Structure formats: C-alpha cells, structure tokens
C-alpha cells in the first residue's frame, strides 16, 4: 500500500525519490550556517548505526525509493562509514555529504571500493580563497579539502562540490568553478545553494527562510525520527526543531514512509480531536 502510494507521489512529483539518512549530528567543524548546530564539543552524539543505515537502505529500495543521501554532521566521524558506504552503494545510488577534512591515506584506502559503485562524495567548499572559505567553515578547511579532492579523484571516486552561498561575488564563484574544473569535476557536479535560515543560520540571522513549498519533500531519517526534507531536522539552541517532523518511528521504514506520505498529502494524525482528556 505504501509502495503504491509512494509510486503515485513520485509520479506526480509530490516528493523526491531520494531517502536522506542523517548518520550523525556530530562534526569536527562548527560552520557558521550549520543547520544542526553541529560542533566538536556537542554533548549528545546522536547517530544512526551503520547496520541500521544499511537496513534502512534495503527497505528504501523495496519500497521503491530510487537513491540515498547520507549526511550529518560529518558522516566520516563514524568509524565504520567507509564500509557502510560501500554497502549502501551496492543497494542504491548514493551521495554522501562530507566536509572533506578527514581523508587520511588510510581512510582513502578504505574508500577505494567506492570507485566501482554508484557513490559520490559531495564535498563542501564555499570559496576558492582559503581565508574566505575558512571564515565560513573553520581554520585550515580549504587546505584539507584542496588536498582531499584530487586524492579522491585520483582513486576514481566520484566527487561533487557543494557551495553554500552567503555573500560570495560572481567573480569569486567563477574562480571556484575554475578550481573544481582543474580537479576534473564538471559543472554538473557543482551544487550551489543558498543558506537556509534554520539552525545556527537562524541564530546568526543568515540566509532565507524557506516557504512551505520551496523545498521538495524527501524522506529524511535521523536519530530523532523522520522528517519532511533534509533541511528539516534542524537544531536551535541545542533543541531539535519538530515543526517538520513526520514520524518518531523510523523502523520499519514503511511506517515512516507512510506518515511521510500522509504529511505530503496534508493528512493530519489522530483526526478526532474531541477528547476531553487532552
């Protein structure tokens, strides 16, 4: 039933075919616009274990979803992420978002099997200027990314670049494009997006508040539950926003998908609100 409803929703363009998996809220950086207020000192390191991610991916494929996105936090903070990505990539096409700062030689070796799978690593880079980039993303970020990307490309691993636009000039963005082309990354694999005014970006007064139809619904699974899209499970002042929560239950994925489709269709839960008990 959920499979049929999902197929119809996908056909009608009411939701995306990708399932996003928030592997962890933990991160080694503290970007100024971070949706989840991730930072190295975070007290509660909420994560979805690798074996659960793989199980969710298998369920997603059975339900009819077409691809996976793995994000966080920094996904490579999880020790088993390289092997998990190999498993995910053998189930569905996968893109994993990363800040690109944790790619040691040993890590790169563990990632080599990805070259034979439909897996892309989407590395964040906001400016071709180290100082400008690092102001947004943290000290030495540019140097680490500039080391990591050629090393990944050299191993045959597909790399995409994601740029979050704040006040970069067109000239600056053009130079960034020159840079990623020099690494062998095409313009098709360069994602440029605005800052969403949620999480730390909202606290900092950055970005644009999305309207209700600005972001395509894509089932997004986190350690806190399932959300309407990947910009939904934000954290502000240490508390997860619930306004775009669709389900606390994420396993079986069918339950979360059913509720996700219900929200996409505008269906409320517990429609009899007349109880005097509450």
């Amino acid at each position: 039933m959920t499979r049929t409803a999902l197929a119809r929703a996908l056909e009608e363009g009411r939701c995306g075919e990708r399932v996003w998996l928030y592997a962890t809220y933990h991160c080694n950086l503290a970007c100024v616009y971070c949706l989840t207020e991730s930072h190295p000192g975070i007290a509660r390191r909420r994560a979805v274990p690798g074996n659960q991610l793989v199980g969710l991916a298998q369920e997603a494929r059975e339900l009819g979803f077409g691809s996976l996105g793995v994000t966080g936090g920094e996904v490579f903070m999880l020790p088993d992420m390289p092997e998990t990505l190999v498993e995910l990539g053998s189930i569905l096409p996968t893109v994993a978002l990363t800040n690109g700062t944790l790619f040691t030689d040993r890590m790169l070796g563990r990632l080599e099997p990805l070259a034979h799978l439909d897996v892309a690593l989407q590395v964040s880079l906001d400016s071709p200027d180290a100082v400008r980039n690092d102001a947004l993303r943290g000290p030495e970020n540019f140097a680490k990314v500039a080391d990591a990307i050629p090393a990944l490309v050299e191993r045959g691993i597909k790399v995409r670049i994601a740029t979050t636009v704040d006040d970069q000039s067109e000239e600056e963005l053009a130079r960034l494009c020159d840079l990623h082309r020099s690494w062998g990354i095409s313009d098709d694999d360069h994602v440029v997006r605005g800052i969403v005014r949620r999480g730390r970006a909202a606290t900092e007064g950055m970005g644009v508040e999305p309207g209700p139809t600005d972001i395509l619904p894509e089932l997004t699974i986190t350690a806190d539950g399932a959300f309407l899209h990947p910009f939904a499970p934000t954290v502000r002042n240490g508390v997860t926003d619930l306004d775009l929560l669709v389900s606390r239950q994420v396993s079986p994925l069918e339950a979360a998908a059913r509720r996700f489709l219900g929200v996409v269709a505008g269906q409320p839960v517990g429609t009899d609100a007349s109880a005097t008990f509450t």
Partner: protein
Amino acid sequence: MSRVRLLERDEAPLSARHLYGDDGSASLLRRSLVNAPDILETLMPFLAQVSAAGSVDLATKELVVVRVSHLNRCAYCLSAHRPLALDVGVPPDQVAAVCDDTSVDELPERERVLVEWIDRFVLDPGSIDDELTARVLDHVRDDQLIEIALVAGTTQMLNHYCTAFAIPPEGR
C-alpha cells in the same frame, strides 16, 4: 516547569497542528503529546471514544476522572477536570466530596459505591471482590462498569504522565 517541551502551534509537527485551535491554543497536555505524533494516530481517537458519552453519561465519567486524579494527586488533571465536571452537570458538592476523603460518605448511594469501587481499582485492584462488584452492578450494567474501568485506567495513565513530566496545572 515541565520536563517535556510544550510546543506552540508553529513548533508542532505539521500532522498534529489540527489539535490546536485557530488561535493557536491547546491544552498543556496536548502541547506535550505532540512531541510524539505517531502515537496520536491511535491515542486521540481512543481518548475521544473513552471520554465521550457512551453507555455511561458524561457526569459519571467526569466524577470518575476527578476521583482518580485526586487519588493520584495529579495537579494538572484536577485543574483541567474539576471545571469540566461542573460543566457537564456534576453537582458542586459531589465534585468537592470526591476531592476530600472525609466527605465521600456524603455522596448519594450510587456515587458512593462507585467511588468505593474506583478507590480499590486505583489503589488495590486485587481487593475488588464479588461482593463489591455485585453492589456496583446494582447501580450500573456490566458494560457500563467496563467503560468506567477504562475511564479510570486511562485517567490513571494520564495522571502518571502529567505528574512524571510535571505538566503545570491549567490556569483556568
């Protein structure tokens, strides 16, 4: 201060916002429950059915709710249901009596036996015997007693919930 978040309408999950009024109002209990929207799929219809006039009239149900909440010392539920009991026609002296252990004997026979049964249901259900059951069934049918038991049990659950999470009393 509540130990769970009491969500305003614009903080609540989209699927649960219909539980708020057009002006954004909702009871503090609802504002806590919407943190767990999945369970509302079945909880809200269940609570609506249990609290609605069924084979048992609303006045009797509210008397049961107030008595159970008194036994459990649930400040939130007493703040919400004492006014409701009056609204649905429970005489003020009966509302006062079920909230005062020394005044229970002043209740009419039917209500007094019901309170005796409720007290044991909440405090020591194993002590309910055939003799007490027979006395209650002199005043209500067996299906009505089942409904009363479910009202009492549901109230017990919510009393514990509200007390454990320190849901503050409604300022009514």
